[in-house]
């Protein structure tokens, strides 16, 4: 997935589309965001300057579906789950979550630096009658388990079944996440990063070789405008972000004083090899 932060208007359509697609519940007071289940959360970043120099950017944050160090599938959360309730799909690269097996130890939440995982502190409750809009494609979660973005895995399953029946590959447009289809600005592009025919691949141009400067990192983008969140940790997310603004790209990771200058140049340089 690639998200064009310059196109994103922060309208929130992706968040709502996600919640309504995945039967995410809501409470009377959702203003404490640390207790608010939002598989897709839109952060607001500022450049710290004052009006009229001030600038903001909205940064939508789904589960990053990390490949883990060296992209071997040991995501921060998957490797720590004691009950194999969350798993890495080597075929899809999607990090799954099995609600009926999770027993709520929340270790995965501690391990995830993106706060992409949310715990059901309460029993999910819908106002009388509203449970009528719940979708059977995603089972509502019970209290006491962790949930997170699944890249709308059920949509993948439906597309795959269709493809199998017709004995062909899944087409790009057949499997799109709810946030992608909802985005009015077309800021979200979704597809198979490893498929050169797909738009995401063409935008990201992922580098299959480990980053010479940090061998934990694989699949770094060869597009200087594209970056990943906390790439240096070696989580190797499958969500890439794109922006023309340097301060935005810098905000994607942590840098020591003066480090950014070299990194940003290297960023472009890394397109030279691979």
């Amino acid at each position, binding site marked *: 997935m690639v998200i064009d932060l310059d196109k994103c208007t922060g*309208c929130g*359509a992706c*968040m709502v589309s996600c919640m309504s697609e995945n039967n995410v519940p809501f409470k009377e007071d959702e203003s404490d965001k640390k207790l608010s289940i939002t598989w897709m959360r839109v952060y607001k970043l500022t450049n710290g300057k004052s009006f009229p120099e001030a600038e903001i*950017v909205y940064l939508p944050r789904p589960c990053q579906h990390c490949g883990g160090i060296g992209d071997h599938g040991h995501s921060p959360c998957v490797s720590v789950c004691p009950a194999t309730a969350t798993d890495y799909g080597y075929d899809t690269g999607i990090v799954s979550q099995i609600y009926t097996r999770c027993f709520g130890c929340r270790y995965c939440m501690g391990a995830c630096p993106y706060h992409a995982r949310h715990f059901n502190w309460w029993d999910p409750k819908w106002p009388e009658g509203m449970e009528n809009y719940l979708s059977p494609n995603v089972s509502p979660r019970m209290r006491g388990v962790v949930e997170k973005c699944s890249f709308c895995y059920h949509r993948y399953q439906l597309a795959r079944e269709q493809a199998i029946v017709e004995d062909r590959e899944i087409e790009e447009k057949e499997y799109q996440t709810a946030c992608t289809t909802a985005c009015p*600005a077309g800021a979200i592009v979704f597809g198979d990063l490893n498929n050169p025919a797909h738009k995401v691949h063409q935008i990201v141009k992922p580098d299959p070789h480990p980053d010479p400067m940090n061998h934990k990192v694989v699949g770094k983008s060869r597009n200087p405008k594209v970056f990943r969140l906390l790439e240096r940790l070696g989580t190797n997310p499958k969500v890439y972000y794109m922006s023309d603004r340097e301060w935005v790209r810098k905000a994607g990771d942590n840098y020591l004083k003066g480090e950014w200058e070299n990194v940003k140049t290297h960023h472009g340089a890394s397109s030279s090899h691979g």
Partner: protein
Amino acid sequence: MKIDRRSFLGLGLGAAAGVALSPVGVKLTDDSSIWTQNWPWTPVPEDGKITYDRSVCSLCPGACGISVKKINGRPVKIEGLDDYPINNGGACPHGISGLQYLYDPARIKTPLKKNGNKFEKISWDEAISLVAQKLGEIRKSGTPESLGLITGADSGSMAQLFERFMDAFGSPNTYNMPSLESNLALTAAALHGADRNLGFDLDHSDFILSFGAAIIEGWGSPVACIQANASRRERKAKLVQVDYRLSNTANAADKIIAVKPGTEADLALGICAVLLAKNLIAGDVNTSAFAAMLAKEYTPEKVEAITGVKAADMEALAMEFIKAKAPVAVPGKGRGDVGQSLREFAAVQALNALADRLNKKGGVFVMYPADYLSFSENVMDDAAKQGASKAKLAGSVNELVDKLEKDGGLSALFIYNANPCYALNNPEKVKVAMDKVGFKVSFSSFMDETALRSDVVLPASIFLERLEDVVSGGGLAKTVVGLCRPMVKPIFDTKHPGDALILLAQAMGDSIAQSFSWNSYDACLEQVTGKIWDTLSGDGYVVIDDKPPVGTPATDFTFLASAPKAAVPMGEGDYTLVPVDKMRLAVGSMISSPFAVKIISDKVLSGKYSVVEINPATAGILKDGDIAVLKTAMGKALVKIGFNEGIMPGVIGMPRGLGHAFNNPYVAGKGVNVNDLIGPVIEPGSGLDAAFGIKATLSKA
């Protein structure tokens, strides 16, 4: 036998060992975990066949096409409809939340009658006959003009149906809530002649000069505008935002021109003056009086003093604008509905006219309203003819409120698609005015602030339950009529307001009944849309027209030449409080859904508090997160301070759309309604409430 301690202990141990070894424990453990995986109080949605159905969303004037996913006919998801001429595939958070409105237990479930200060359920027959009887009395008394109508919808068959009823009944007193559409229509009327709309061709403009218009935050047709902005980036078209805070639109803009709140019109006129002075204006538009006024009142120096924009910057901007291939100036700060002045709209439109941008690709289209409806001649008896020919009680809904509050004048009032007791400035005054009206009938779907004060509620089915023609509005440069189709049978005992109106008319008998001789609204719609019905019902929409209208309309500058005065914010205080429109918050007669409320940032709503934007530089002793008392001439409220580098010092930005007061814990009782703090400032000539803000003071609570 005697059981001694030894054998007793032995037995005990034996029993314990026995239980431990038996499968009982294992079985219980397993069952209990299975139970937790199927808790009866966690719903299990029923599975079934997946189908998709198309319709049009009429929550806001955006009129987007939607695709509704159903399971065994049960709607479970709303998404944008691909290839729909307005939003092709896109959707906004409110439209996607549509199903939450549909199933909301807080909806009005049956017709209601006010009894004392409580509502009691009544049947539709009772309700209709009750209203018919009340209205009958009014007609008998010979003052049919004392029936009023406040409505939000200004286009489509429903609007005309209500108009028709008012005519047939004999009253001219129809009033529209302020909306971008009505403001644009007013502007067009003042500059180009009555009965016209303005459409802004953002998709093809290469230089958009927005005078505070929240183009990507709900202005006009929200999704269409957001898409226009996205394509703008690809087309490398420029956006310059005139604003006093870093709205999302300002943030997306290539350049921000910082102006003092409420001086946008002056800047526009200043630019006009520059163009005239440099003689860069188009053709031979008769501008003498106007030109003279500009030359006198709007010299760059004066404008700089008023707006705070450096004369040089303004001249540069003017040049950039006029030199662009396809520039367009966009009026209507925020969503362009409440707190707008004709002066400002006209000034911006004048700029478009002088720059010869009327009816040009990428400019402003001066369009005639979509003419696709053909109603049969309205049957009006003498009473009706007399009443309808009488003068209106007031020029605008704001003036109506004044009038009613002072000395009444209406004996009955219909409210449709409107929530004046919330959406107009100083709602307290509106409520007083409402109470002066003898008999109020609400056609609302939700028990909102206005419905709460009405005597009878004829609950309306919501857009997912009704068939209706929806006309694109919102300053779009094209006219599309879409067909809103019922996705489900009404969930509650509600009716299509069209049907309610027809039933009512027929219950009233004689001439009125004759004017409404259809046996259902659906039949009526099919008949009146005769020419386009087949395409409409087939494709789901008809594009009436999406090309620039031919010829350049004349522009009459007399209104501006009269040098109308700018509205001055009421009261005093070191700060200017301005309402801020947020994409995630619904405004006007529309109420945010639980989902929409859930996604509101904690920098907008924090617990029960509205968070106000304030620049740290002018926050004084107040700190980020403090609870403070915000005081204006209209009242005071407790708010939370939210430091925001992106707002002009001295200005307080307060989110619009919060502070609803009715019984729904998920969306009401949250924050403060900013309108409570702002008093209307009526603009002479237009009757618009031009209060863009109000002076305010802040003190630590």
